[in-house]
């Protein structure tokens, strides 16, 4: 592959563009509502109308408004149709010739769409994820070419550092710093790993990116490998995401065919290969040392750090691990420059963040917003507030490692620091809205049950602590607990948080701590008076 070929593919793809483009969402959400049949019906309808030369029907990745799927967009005139059934295909194709249809129209001018800023998702719902040409037509692999021809590895690292990009997996570690550490570690063998083990319940951003635009993640990985000097990469995907795995496999095959993976990429001396590793259902494998153990074919148990993976990681070699969304941010940063990226977001949190908006909110789906947008704008304007006349009570971010932000704090800007200050975390991007009918103690119990089941059992605070905390929460919910039990629970939270080996245990108490902080009366209302004390005098809090 050389630049001329890239340009040629792009021009050929543009020239082949037909007058009207019908895009049909084929991401997992819409697929569950028979989107595949809708796509086939549209294909047939176009043929029946004799419009094959004017109309292209394209299966694409996530079109974002999952709750209204299957989604179909006809452009021009840029009309979005929702809840499309296969039987609607004829009337939809008919609209191209001025016909009418009864299919429900979606509003592309609603805040759900207009407030989004697409960087990671810029191709999402536009390109055909199963065709590399479709990605190249949208300037795909141009960043990789520029990097390999015009930039030294150290320049790539410094560009990423300047952009201010931080890890999108949850912790927010500066990406440039991580790359620099791996780059300067001396070794003949280095690895790059893409963490696509999106285990947080309530999160589906990585899944959507992989299903909608897999080449972007590959391009980001190849650039990273060049920058740090690695020649082998792994993508660790959950087994629960079969569609994402299939599309990644297709993407890797195509990239190899086009000389974008393998040896002599873009006729440079640089070579790099990628393999997919499929997870087997263990939340703890999202932790980087556990993930590496799993890639090596062992039980996914974490180990103490240091040494950090940047120094001694996979098979004992320096390893760069980044999240899917982090890699997806790399090509646009290289293409548009670090300054452009650094101009988006807040002082300490640059760029955008993709969130999976779900729960008790009218519009559920995938959103990408600039860092620093107030939570209220996300859940009320974009999400449309709680459905069925409910009132938003809290927003949960960060899954089992995060916390519940009460409605009174909805004006908090969404960035790493602000969310941490409220006892939650940015996390990987799951955002679950809860309304008045949700009992926060039960929510805390739900997450504790999750952590209890998912604890790998290696360190005692996490293995035993989560069981005890879960039992105490269950006791509180059963109205059998006293104020003494609550004190024990708080003690345990503190202990597990500070003595566990890895992130799973260290953050397991967060949902309890954050609900205790903002919804303490709900806990107190469930407590029993201590035996031997008058029922109506609340027991004093033990020091």
């Amino acid at each position, binding site marked *: 592959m050389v630049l001329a070929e890239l340009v040629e593919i792009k021009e050929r793809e543009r020239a082949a563009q037909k007058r009207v483009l019908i895009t049909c969402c084929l991401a*997992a*959400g819409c*697929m*569950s*509502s028979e989107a595949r049949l809708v796509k086939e019906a549209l294909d047939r309808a176009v043929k029946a109308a004799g419009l094959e030369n004017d109309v292209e029907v394209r299966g694409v990745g996530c079109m974002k408004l*999952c*709750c209204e*799927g299957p989604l179909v967009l006809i452009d021009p005139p840029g009309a979005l149709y929702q809840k499309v059934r296969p039987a609607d295909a004829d009337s939809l194709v008919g609209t191209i010739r001025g016909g009418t249809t009864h299919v429900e129209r979606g509003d592309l001018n609603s805040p759900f769409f207009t407030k989004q800023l697409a960087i990671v998702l810029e191709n999402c719902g536009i390109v055909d994820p199963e065709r590399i040409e479709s990605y190249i037509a949208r300037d795909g692999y141009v960043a990789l070419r520029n990097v390999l021809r015009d930039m030294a590895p150290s320049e790539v690292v410094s560009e990423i550092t300047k952009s201010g990009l931080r890890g999108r997996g949850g912790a927010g570690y500066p990406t440039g710093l991580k790359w620099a550490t791996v780059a300067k570690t001396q070794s003949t063998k280095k690895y790059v790993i893409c963490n696509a083990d*999106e*285990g*947080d*319940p*309530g*999160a*589906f951003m990585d*899944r959507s990116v992989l299903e909608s635009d897999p080449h972007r993640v590959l391009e980001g990985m190849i650039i990273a490998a060049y920058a740090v000097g690695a020649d082998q990469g792994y993508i660790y995907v959950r*087994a*629960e*995401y079969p569609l994402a795995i299939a599309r990644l496999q297709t993407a890797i095959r195509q990239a190899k065919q086009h000389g974008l993976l393998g040896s002599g990429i873009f006729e440079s001396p640089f070579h790099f290969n990628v393999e997919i*590793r*499929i*997870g*087997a*259902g*263990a*939340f703890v494998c999202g932790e980087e040392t556990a993930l590496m153990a*799993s*890639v*090596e*074919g*062992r*039980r*996914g*148990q974490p180990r103490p750090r240091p040494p950090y993976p940047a120094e001694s990681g996979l098979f004992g070699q320096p390893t760069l691990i980044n999240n899917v969304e982090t890699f997806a941010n790399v090509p646009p940063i290289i293409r548009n420059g670090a300054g452009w990226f650094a101009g988006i977001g807040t002082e300490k949190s640059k760029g955008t963040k993709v969130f*999976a*908006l*779900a*729960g*008790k909110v009218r519009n*559920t*789906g*995938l959103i990408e917003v600039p860092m620093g947008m107030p939570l209220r704008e996300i859940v009320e304007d974009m999400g449309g507030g709680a459905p069925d006349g409910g009132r938003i009570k809290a927003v*949960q971010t960060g*899954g089992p490692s995060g916390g519940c932000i009460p409605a009174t704090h909805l004006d908090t800007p969404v960035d790493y620091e602000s969310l941490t200050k409220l006892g939650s975390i940015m996390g990987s991007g*799951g955002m*679950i809205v*809860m309304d008045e009918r*949700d009992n926060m103690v039960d*929510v805390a119990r*739900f*997450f504790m049950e*999750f952590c209890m089941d*998912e604890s*790998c059992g290696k360190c005692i605070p996490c293995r035993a602590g989560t069981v005890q905390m879960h039992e105490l929460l269950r006791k509180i919910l059963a109205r059998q607990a006293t104020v003494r039990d609550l004190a024990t629970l708080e003690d345990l939270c503190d202990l597990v948080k500070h003595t566990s080996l890895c992130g799973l245990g260290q953050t397991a108490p967060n949902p309890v701590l954050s609900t205790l902080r903002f919804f303490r009366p709900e806990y107190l209302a469930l407590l029993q008076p201590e035996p031997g004390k008058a029922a109506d005098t609340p027991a004093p809090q033990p020091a």
Partner: protein
Amino acid sequence: MSTIATPKQTGPSGATAGHPSGDKRFKILEVFIKRQQQRQDALIEVLHKAQELFGFLDDGLLYFVAQGLRLPPSRVYGVATFYHFFKLKPQGAHTCVVCMGTACYVKGANRIVEALEQAAGIKAGGTTADGGMSLLTARCIGACGIAPAVVYDDVVAPRQTPESALERVKGWLNHGAR
């Protein structure tokens, strides 16, 4: 529980040649292991393949894998029991997986599980006595936008209720194992 006999040691090298039972699936698995160049870090890939072929992993099968990859059986057993995805018991003819992710949970997935448990007379994670259906729960299948979601035989269904779930599995519960 063992439906597959423990294979005998076939040589001092510990290498296997098919399986004494003559089951062709062992041959397929053996080829797959060879294609991984017997790399021990491919253990999880091999277990995925074994489960795909046999439906579940019993002791004899794990032993076969251990020999193929020249790993101690304890290591293979340790890995197979660590990951939720690997099943050590036979599964029902049909599977019904209720997603219990946060979004599904706040939208009432637990009521769906309760209704199914009651109708099938089993607890989540179990299989009906006639082998007709396994009822499972998932941590999160990433279909939060269409919660609550249930996966019936690998097909995801959106916005389920206890009633719609019961309707869907009715045939799997009454007629036994096909």
